């Protein structure tokens, strides 16, 4: 077995963004289910929020490789 502790740390660090992304899309699905015509309003908000949350996971990935 090879590997480094960095990757274990990255796995742990990815939990946060994973939960955040799940919650963002859960809220988006809820909103669209309750009011389907709000879809086009909610979609950009959901994806912007998703992009911000995933940014943290991506920084973690970069640091796992760089450090």
């Amino acid at each position, binding site marked *: 077995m090879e590997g480094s502790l960095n990757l274990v740390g990255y796995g742990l660090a990815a939990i946060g963004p994973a939960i955040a992304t799940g919650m963002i899309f859960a809220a988006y699905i809820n909103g669209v289910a309750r009011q389907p015509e709000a879809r086009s309003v909610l*979609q*950009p908000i959901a*994806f912007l929020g998703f992009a911000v949350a*995933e*940014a943290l996971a*991506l920084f973690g990935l*970069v640091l796992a*490789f760089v450090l």
Partner: protein
Amino acid sequence: MRVTQLSQGEGFKPPSAADFDLPPFFGDNAFATKPILLVFLSVILISVFFIMASRKAAVVPSRMQFAGESVYSFIRNDLAKDLIGHEFLRFVPYLFTLFTFILVNNFFGIVPLLQFPTMSRVSFPYVLAAITFFVFHYVGIRKQGPVKYIREIMFMPGVPKAVYVLLTPIELATFFVVRPLTLSLRLFANMFAGHLLLLVFFLGGEHLLMGALGLKFVSPFAFGVGIALTFFEFMIQILQAYIFTLLTALYIAGAIADEH
């Protein structure tokens, strides 16, 4: 090379980042590597497809025209029109090119014989994100003037003054560092991880097949999972092309919005 290593009875060497460093085809010409040739191939494929699809345009579309038009209308209506608003038509060519280019290059990851997603080499997403970065800042500065554009970014209206201490650095970092960086890294990381995942299951299955008799019976399961993951990758590839284009459209929309 890998196969011969395995057949000599060494331990399983898991695929790593080194598997993405493909040697040049001809001598040591650094520009004739597989990813670069795949990019040229993708440009040829996309051009040929859409020229063929639009050449004999008719009211009753042929099958090819229908396929081409449905991709175009998806980008034009569902992405650009809904997100950017009344000025959307200027940006449709860029968004459409971006989407088809990323999509075809991602598909190369699962096309038999090619099987290498171009975007798993980080330099290609960097360039695409840099173009998007310049496009959305350029249209924002053109629309609002440089001073007003930067002021809107740094000092978001309708916020208590004390909050600017925190908010201004975050907003500046978001617009000038985080956005282009995450845009490129998201695409790269997804393609990289997806390709690595497929390598793990197919090379692992191969290694099991070379192993002891008991292990041979397990290897079909590894190949089965690999094939299932190939379909999963197909979904991810479409999704990543879509997200890259969607975020580009969102950033452009934010830059040319009348009020932030």
